[in-house]
């Protein structure tokens, strides 16, 4: 039985210039899930996410959102349904936190409707959800990396979309900020937002994700609930890494420990 899904890729062929990354790729994002895409570097996971968010046009196949090809949406209509936290964003010099979060309201605004009550409420809610209310008057360029990433997340939340895509949201953050952010995403997911994230950390993927998509060489190798698909065999097949999979001592979700090669002196 496959769960209903609003967002799906059908027979997608995507790549950059003439280099094809994925051929005839099909995935479905289960509604209400926190889907995590994992795989080695250059396996096509970010490319898939870019195609799902329409940043990248497929050379064949299509991405379907709510029964319609994503290519047929008007830009602002799409941005009211589907949000994206890109891998790299630029904050204008000297912008304040509240102002940057407010930029997330762009798809809801127009020439006449530049700053409605709804805009204000959405920005306040997004800042409250990400715990940055007290930073609201600060300049973004003087914040720490972890705080800054929260501001970007708040900007995407202010967009108020029911689907949010996250491209490596925790890269460059220390472990405490990574966990902090993953728990924030879990909260959002529990409140009903469908999330799709590209992550590097397998243990975090298995711990926080509700649905995992493992990719290698542009193709999906396995997908399903983390407890069902994360095995030593799969990790070796996808990453070429010998490992043991043990239950996470805190949550019981699969946790990957690499075996590695023996040390020169024979001890481990």
């Amino acid at each position, binding site marked *: 039985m496959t769960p209903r899904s609003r967002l799906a890729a059908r027979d997608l062929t995507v790549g950059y210039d003439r280099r094809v990354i994925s051929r005839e790729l099909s995935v479905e994002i289960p509604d209400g899930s926190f889907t995590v895409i994992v795989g080695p570097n250059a396996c096509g996971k970010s490319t898939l996410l870019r195609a799902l968010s329409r940043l990248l046009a497929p050379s064949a196949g299509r991405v379907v959102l709510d029964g319609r090809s994503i290519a047929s949406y008007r830009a602002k209509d799409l941005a009211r349904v589907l949000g994206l936290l*890109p891998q790299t964003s630029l904050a204008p010099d000297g*912008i304040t936190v509240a102002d940057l979060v407010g930029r997330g309201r762009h798809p809801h605004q127009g020439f006449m409707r530049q700053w*409605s*009550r709804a805009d204000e409420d959405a920005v306040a809610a997004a800042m409250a959800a990400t715990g940055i209310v007290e930073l609201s008057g600060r300049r973004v360029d003087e914040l720490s990396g972890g705080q800054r990433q929260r501001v970007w997340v708040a900007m995407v939340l202010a967009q108020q979309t029911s689907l949010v895509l996250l491209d490596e949201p925790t890269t460059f953050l220390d472990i405490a900020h990574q966990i902090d952010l993953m728990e924030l995403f879990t909260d959002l997911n529990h409140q009903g937002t469908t999330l799709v994230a590209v992550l590097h950390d397998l243990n975090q993927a298995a711990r926080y994700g509700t649905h995992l998509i493992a990719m290698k060489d542009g193709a999906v190798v396995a997908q399903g609930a983390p407890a069902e698909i994360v095995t030593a065999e799969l990790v070796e097949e996808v990453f070429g890494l010998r490992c043991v999979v043990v239950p996470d001592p805190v949550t019981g979700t699969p946790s990957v420990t690499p075996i590695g090669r023996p040390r020169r002196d024979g001890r481990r």
Partner: protein
Amino acid sequence: MRDTAFGLESGPRVIVLRGRTLSVRFRLRTLIACAVFGAALVGLALVALGLGDLPLSVDEVVSAFFGGESGIARTVVVEWRLPRVLAAVIFGAALGVSGAIFQSLTRNPLASPDIIGLTAGSYAGGLVVIIVIGAGAGSATVAGGAILGGLIATALVYLLAYRRGIQGFRLIVVGIGISAMLEALSSYLVLRAKLEVAMMASVWGAGSLNPVGWAQLLPAAVVIAVVFLALGFLGGSLRQLELGDDAAKALGSRVERSRLGLIVCAVALTAVVTAAAGPIAFVALAAPQIALRLTRTAGIALVPSALLGALILLASDVVAQHVLPTVLPVGVVTVVVGGGYLIWLLVHEVRRRS
């Protein structure tokens, strides 16, 4: 608009106005700065209208407008001096906005029309028309040549600097190269021309509001007004583009279309001004940056840049006409003022990079 809510929200720094269909938000600091720029502009314009062979006080200038003065004062103010003052204001605003768009799109304070080849292209285009076809400076044909020259130069710089997207610093380096080549071409054209044509071309080439009367001002002002109107719709995209292409797209901007539209607007503004008054250097470079420092907006804002551009050009024209012992083309004054600023900016940028 009955339920207009007027209030100070998020502290005293933002003003929100809301009606049933309309809602707008202003930063208080930007609003005050713009009001000050605007007041200074009106004051300076009134003074400028009174300066000249027939000196008039501000009172006399105001009453000349409302018919209280004798015929001669009215003729001097409305027929002779007003087009020039209006030209300084409108052209200055156009240059300020043009520079603001380029600087915002490239995220680089050096990327103004003067540096990236647009001004040089417009000048060369205008010269070709004056010297080869023989049209008079300030005519519609020269305007067409200047606009075409500006578009070709910008397209050339854009294509040569393009490598998987446009990066600000490449654009500037390529632009400086193309500018130098176009200036060489312009010098060659002037040297080859007949003496009287070369004289006319040189006066135009220094950037002067001298030849601007109602006949030159009106068509240029109409084009500038249309572009400003278009920017009313594109201005929001400019703000979103500051976040980077991916974020802007994800937030519902049509990035490529908006950027192309914005570049066409910026090219049109500088080219129209160049066509009517010759290349006036450095207003486009300096106005957005000074506005940025005074208003402390996040990113470059169009309206303060426009007001400051107008203020700079009007002040430069007053200095060029009345303060110096000899009357100079306004372009010479802006070059002297702007040149100093450019050196400061270059030093500042190099320090920031190293």
